[in-house]
């Protein structure tokens, strides 16, 4: 049914960066009108560079881009937009303080000098109806969920008349029900001959379900081009990583021991002063992974911070090995064997301007092995840091490299290396694999399972439902500050937990 003449053709695109890094090496890509064409690749495969070139942010060193058979050169995103290319960024390029409508009409050539909001509203509404988007045009963007913000970016591109839509990790932030409506909208766009190009690292299966063809990038080269029908999940992951990937992790058989942590009716305020955690009770035993599945902003962040000692609870108690630690300091908790892996790797997890040694030092400075009478023993500290870095496979030029220069995966390895060896009883891991590629994700999950093997209790918080289901012994979907239910791994079905996360099911039934 689809016309065979490509709407977008990329030939021999090569991009080198200073320092001799070849980000893209003679990449070819061919997109037909109305096609859904996924580009897969690990972090560092060159996806971002390719997207930036297609959208005019970067200029290629070699190679040509053709649109409808005509050669084009993009000097800026504006050029790309004028040629009918739209971009949906993963890091949203939206203005949180402005309304949805203002964001959509901003900078549009059609927008009048004195804005006629009524006319613009009607036009955008028509677009929403056509593609099945449901969004309040007068809401401020900061009030929207990550999925709704994505819709705003798509609408902005469509309002500009985009015929080719580049989507950066479109499904990562969506809830299961949002994924479904998103995929439906993508199909609706197909009918209007709008080609969509999702760039994907995580969450392969969802995109897999709708796309027509797939191009796999690895280290700047196209390693495979194939139709969806010929592909399997396992094969795709292998093309991406370049080796066999174990999708099923080996869950160690561990005896579940005594209770380590008991949380009673815990509540807490968010940064904005709103009641975010509304009375949560649960317990974690030795060797147990307790998984909390929920969309960000449902109180799980506050819960993790309260248990780690970073946030004062409003009410409730935290009992750790029989002791009430509700008011204990972070340092006291660390010394008791509680470790915390925060979702914000730079900023909370590590200090970007500090070297790897200094970052590791932050979690051992109080230990008498490394300091006496207030003086630090840098020799011992450096030895320890070297040991940690090799043990946790952090790839870095030296231990004096600044943490900010590490890739996401290496940074997380560093943080794990800081926290896990000092943690003996309870590990709190909040979104430990968010934004990581397959290889790093695998490494992090295996570390968490090793903690379990050592008999530690683990509190795992994640937006990634598959991750929670795969690793946890008990699963608690969290919605608006409350656990919907606490399920055992055996009884937790993906569809049910997904619906609970989205608030569709209440706990009672």
């Amino acid at each position, binding site marked *: 049914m689809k016309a065979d003449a490509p709407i977008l053709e990329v030939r021999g695109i090569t991009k080198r960066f200073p320092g001799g890094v070849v980000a893209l090496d003679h990449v070819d890509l061919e997109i037909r009108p109305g096609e859904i064409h996924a580009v897969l690749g690990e972090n560092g495969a060159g996806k971002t560079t390719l997207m930036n070139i297609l959208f005019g942010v970067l200029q290629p060193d070699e190679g040509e881009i053709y649109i409808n058979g005509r050669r084009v050169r993009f000097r800026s995103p504006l050029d790309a937009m004028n040629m009918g290319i739209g971009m949906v960024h993963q890091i949203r390029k939206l203005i949180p303080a402005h309304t949805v409508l203002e964001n959509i009409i*901003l900078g549009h050539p059609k927008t009048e*000098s004195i804005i006629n909001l009524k006319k613009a509203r009607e036009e955008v509404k028509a677009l929403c109806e056509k593609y099945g988007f449901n969004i309040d045009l007068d809401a401020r963007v900061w009030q929207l969920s990550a999925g709704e913000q994505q819709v705003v970016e798509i609408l902005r591109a469509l309002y500009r008349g985009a015929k080719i839509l580049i989507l950066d990790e479109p499904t990562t932030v969506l809830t299961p029900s949002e994924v479904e409506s998103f995929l439906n909208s993508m199909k609706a766009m197909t009918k209007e001959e709008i080609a969509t190009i999702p760039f994907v690292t995580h969450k392969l299966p969802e995109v897999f379900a709708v796309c027509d063809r797939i191009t796999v990038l690895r280290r700047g080269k196209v390693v495979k081009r194939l139709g969806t029908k010929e592909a399997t999940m396992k094969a795709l992951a292998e093309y991406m990583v370049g080796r066999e990937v174990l999708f099923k992790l080996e869950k160690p058989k561990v005896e579940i021991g005594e209770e380590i942590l008991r949380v009673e009716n815990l509540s807490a305020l968010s940064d904005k002063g709103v009641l975010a955690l509304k009375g949560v009770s649960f317990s974690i035993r030795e060797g147990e992974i307790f998984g909390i599945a929920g969309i960000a902003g449902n109180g799980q962040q506050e819960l993790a911070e309260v248990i780690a000692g970073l946030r004062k609870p409003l009410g409730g108690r935290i009992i750790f090995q029989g002791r009430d630690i509700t008011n204990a300091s972070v340092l006291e908790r660390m010394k008791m064997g509680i470790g915390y892996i925060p979702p914000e790797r730079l900023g909370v997890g590590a200090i970007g301007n500090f070297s790897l040694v200094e970052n590791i030092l932050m979690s051992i400075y109080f230990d008498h092995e490394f300091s006496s009478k207030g003086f630090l023993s840098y020799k011992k500290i450096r030895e320890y840091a070297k040991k940690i870095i090799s043990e946790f496979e952090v790839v870095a030029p030296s231990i004096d490299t600044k943490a900010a220069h590490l890739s996401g995966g290496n940074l997380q390895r560093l943080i794990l290396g800081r926290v896990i060896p000092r943690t003996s009883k309870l590990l709190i891991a909040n979104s430990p694999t968010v934004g990581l590629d397959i290889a790093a994700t695998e490494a992090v999950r295996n570390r968490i399972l090793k903690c379990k093997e050592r008999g530690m209790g683990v509190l795992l918080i994640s937006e990634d439902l598959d991750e929670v289901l795969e690793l946890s012994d008990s699963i608690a979907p969290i919605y608006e500050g409350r656990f919907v239910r606490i399920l055992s791994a055996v009884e937790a079905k993906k569809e049910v937990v997904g619906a609970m996360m989205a608030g569709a099911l209440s706990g009672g039934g």
Partner: protein
Amino acid sequence: MWPFIIRSLEVATILLLAAIGELLTQRSGIINVGIEGLMLLGAASGFLAALIWGIVPGYVVGMIMGALFGLLHAVLSITLRVNQVVSGMGIWLFAMGFVTYWADRYSGPLPPGVVSLRIYGLSPLFFIGIAAVFIIWFILSKTHLGLKIRSTGENPFAAEVSGVKVIRIRYACTIIGGALSGLAGAFLSLTYLGTWSHLPTKGLGWIAFALVMFSLWRPQILLGGAILFGFVWQFAISPESVYAGIPAPLPILRMLPFIVTIVLLVIISSERFRRKWWLAKPEALGVPYIKE
């Protein structure tokens, strides 16, 4: 009483012009802490120009001087990405030294022939100041250009991908802001004081700067704040013109309006009113824009 009101409205005019310019600059994401300096430069150059050419060229020269130093701040903070606070401070310090050296030898009143225009005792610049507030309010809230300016101040990256020329808008807003501060300075030395004395601004620029923040970046609130502060300032200078005969120590009387004003403005900028009136602090204020 009438002369007191007129004088107060003149102070309000000074604050209004400088603050609405700074509001526009800040709405585009550039913070210029050097308004006091821009006002000094505008005051001195305007005064010297008026000695030669008369009152209106005095205003114009003051404005041009302000625009030039606004441009300097723009080059430093937008193109060279100097820390904006440091750049603004630098302009202020430079202005203090330079203006002292340049204009203090002409200390004294304007010659009798150089007189400001008056409409019912008020300077036309008072009305121009009020008009400027309304024009800037209208541009910011009703026009596409205003949406672009606000977007630039909120998130320049988002603005750029929508085809907004971020650098150009920031330059324009910083220069216009500088010009208005320069005009405010010229109005101070030519109309309000009518004489040159050592560093005549005496902190008015800083009050204008504070007004922008107290106004929650809204022109309407800024207008009220500037008039209120105008009266307070004038009252602090000559409380006897209002309170004649009240048996209270002068320092206390002079302090009272300031205390009242600060309390009032703290209340306005409190959480409750921020929620109600929607705090509009530009998210990218003071953050240099570096293209990817």
